[in-house]
C-alpha cells in the first residue's frame, strides 16, 4: 500500500460519502442542510497527511471532508458511520444528533456553523496548547467568503502577537454561497495575513501531492514554534453550496471538473489499486449508512430540560 493509495482512498471516501449524502437528501431521507466537500477533497486529505493525530482542528460548515480526512490520520481511524448517524439525527451520531451537519465534535475535532467566529476560538486553543507545551498545533478552516468577518482579523492579530501555533487554512473555492470572490474580497488574500506579519503558503492546485508539500512546510513552521501561518488553497467546489443553490453556468461547472483531485491523483495508482480503493470505500459506506439508518433517534431526557439549572 503506497502513501498515494492512502491519499486516494481518503479522497474517494469523502467523495462517495458526500455523493451518498446528496442522494439521501434528494430522496427526502434527510432533512436540514448540508455542504459537501466534493471537488475540494485534496485540501483536507493533503493537509491531514502531514499533521499529527493529536493535532486540533476547528472546522466550519463544510466539515464532513475535514472530519473524514482528520480521522484518517488518527490511529483510531475516522468513522463515516458516526458521521452518517449524526447527519441522520441519530443518537449514535458524533454528538448524539444534537449538532447535525455543521456542528460536530470528536476527539480533537470541532466544527461550528458561524462563519469567522471559530477563528478566535481556535486561537485560544492554540494558546492553551502552547502554554501547556503539548506540541500540538491547531488548524482552523475558513472559506474565501469568511474573509468578510471581522473576528478573523482580531484573531490573526492575537495569533501573531502571541506567536500561537495556529494554522489558518483558507480554502478559496471562488464562491461564498453564490457570491464570487470578486464581489466579496477586496485586495489580496495573502495580504490579509501578511498585514499581521503572518507567513503564507499559497497554492493554486487540486493535486493532493502539491498540497501535501505546501502543508508540510506550513505545519512545520507552526509546530517549530515560529508562530501562526496561513495556507491558502485555491480550489473548486463542484456541487451546489448546500443543496439546490447553484447559480453557476453549466459551462463553468464542466470546466472546473478538469481540476478533479481524484482524476489528477488517480494515474499514480494502478487500476487494481483504484478498484481496491473503490471496493473498500463502497463497503465501508454501505455498512456505515445502513447501520446508521437503523439506529435509534435520541430522546430528550428530563435532565436535559433546562441545561443551566444544574451546576
Amino acid at each position: 500500500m503506497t502513501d498515494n493509495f492512502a491519499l486516494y482512498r481518503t479522497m474517494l471516501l469523502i467523495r462517495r460519502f458526500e455523493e451518498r449524502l446528496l442522494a439521501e437528501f434528494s430522496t427526502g431521507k434527510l432533512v436540514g442542510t448540508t455542504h459537501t466537500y466534493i471537488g475540494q477533497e485534496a485540501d483536507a486529505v493533503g493537509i491531514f497527511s502531514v499533521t499529527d493525530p493529536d493535532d486540533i482542528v476547528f472546522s466550519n460548515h463544510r466539515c464532513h471532508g475535514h472530519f473524514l480526512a482528520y480521522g484518517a490520520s488518527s490511529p483510531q481511524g475516522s468513522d463515516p458511520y458516526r458521521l452518517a448517524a449524526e447527519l441522520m439525527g441519530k443518537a449514535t451520531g458524533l454528538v448524539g444528533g444534537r449538532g447535525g451537519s455543521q456542528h460536530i465534535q470528536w476527539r480533537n475535532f470541532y466544527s461550528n456553523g458561524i462563519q469567522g467566529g471559530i477563528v478566535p476560538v481556535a486561537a485560544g486553543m492554540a494558546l492553551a496548547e502552547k502554554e501547556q507545551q503539548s506540541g500540538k498545533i491547531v488548524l482552523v478552516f475558513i472559506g474565501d467568503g469568511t474573509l468578510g468577518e471581522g473576528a478573523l482579523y482580531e484573531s490573526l492579530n492575537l495569533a501573531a502577537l502571541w506567536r500561537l501555533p495556529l494554522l489558518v487554512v483558507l480554502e478559496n473555492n471562488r464562491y461564498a454561497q453564490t457570491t464570487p470572490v470578486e464581489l466579496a474580497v477586496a485586495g489580496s488574500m495573502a495580504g490579509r495575513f501578511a498585514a499581521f506579519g503572518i507567513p503564507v503558503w499559497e497554492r493554486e492546485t487540486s493535486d493532493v501531492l502539491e498540497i501535501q508539500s505546501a502543508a508540510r512546510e506550513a505545519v512545520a513552521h507552526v509546530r517549530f514554534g515560529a508562530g501562526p501561518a496561513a495556507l491558502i488553497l485555491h480550489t473548486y467546489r463542484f456541487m451546489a453550496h448546500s443543496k439546490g443553490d447553484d447559480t453557476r453556468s453549466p459551462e463553468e461547472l464542466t470546466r472546473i471538473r478538469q481540476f478533479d483531485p481524484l482524476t489528477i491523483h488517480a494515474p499514480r495508482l494502478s487500476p487494481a489499486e483504484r478498484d481496491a480503493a473503490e471496493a473498500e470505500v463502497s463497503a465501508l459506506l454501505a455498512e456505515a449508512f445502513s447501520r446508521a439508518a437503523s439506529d435509534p433517534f435520541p430522546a430528550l431526557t428530563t435532565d436535559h430540560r433546562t441545561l443551566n439549572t444544574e451546576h
Partner: protein
Amino acid sequence: MTTVLDSLNSALHSAMESDPRLYVLGEDLLDPYGGAFKVTRGLSTRFPERVLTTPISEAAILGAATGMALRGLRPVAEIMFGDFVTLIADQVVNHAAKFRWMYNDQVRVPLVVRAPMGGRRGYGPTHSQSLEKMFLGVPGLKVIAPSALGDPGALLLAAIADEDPVLFVEHKLLYTRPLLQAGQGDLADFALESGGDPFPYFVLRPPAPPRLTVATYGYNFELARAAALELMMEHEIFCDLLVFSQLSPFDLTPLFASLTQTRRLLTVEEGTLTLGWGAEVAARAVETVSGLQVRRVAARDLPIANSRPLEDAILPQVADIVAAARSF
C-alpha cells in the same frame, strides 16, 4: 394564492419602485439566487444599482445601513439567518438605536433590518434560533414581526416608512404560508378584530365567552390557532387569541382588555422561555390586571438540536399549548 413570501417580496418591489432612496443590502441577494429565502428575488434585476450584495460581514452590513440612514437613504438590510443577529448587537444597541436620542433628536436612523428566525426545519443549533428576544426593549429600536394574518407586505412597508430603526423578524416557516383571510377556513368560527397603527394587532374572538387569553406573534400563531381550535372542539375551552405584530416597544392595551374578562394569560412564542417576549407580557399584565393567572409556552432553555425528534421536544408544539391552556 398569495404567500407571506410573495407579500414581502412585492412590498420590497413597490418600495424600491416608489422611493429612489431605498437600498437593499445583505449577503447573496443578487438574482438569480435572490437571497437565501428569496425575499429579495427580482430586486437586483430591476434595481441593479440599489441592491448591494455584501461580503459575509453582518456587523458592517448593519453599520453601513446605519450610516446610509443617517445620510438620507432608506436601507433595508438582510441578515441571512436570524441566529447571526448576535453579530449586529453592538451596531444595533450602541449605534443605530442609540443615535437619535443620544444626539438630542438631531438625527434619525430610518433603517430596517430583516432577519429570518426560527426552527422546525432541522437546521441545527446555529441556524434555528429565535433571538429577537435579545432586542426587545432596546431603547430606540422597534421590533416587528409579521404573521400570516393581515398584510405582511404592508407591515414591511410601515417598517420602512418608520423614521427609527426596526428589526423585522420573519419566521422561516411563514414564507410558504398563504395569507389568512378573516372568517375563512378554520378561522370561520372566530370574529376578527384589529387595531394598532401602523403595526397592527389582531384579536380573534371565539363564538362563546373566552376562558383564557392566548397572546402570540409570528409563525407561532399557526400553532396557537391550531391549539385554540382543538381546545374549542375537544375540550369546550374558548380562547381569545391575540396576535401582535409590534413586539417592542410593548403596547399591550388590547391584551389587557381581554384579560380583564378572562384573568388567564397564556403566552406562546418559539424563543427560549426565560426572558422571552412572554416574560414582559406577563409582567405588564400582572402589573395591570388583578387576580391574574399566567402560563407561558416557549422553547426549553436549550440550544435547538438538529435531530428532528429532539428539535420537536425542545420547541413548543400545539400539544404543549393545549396542555397549558387546560392546566389553568
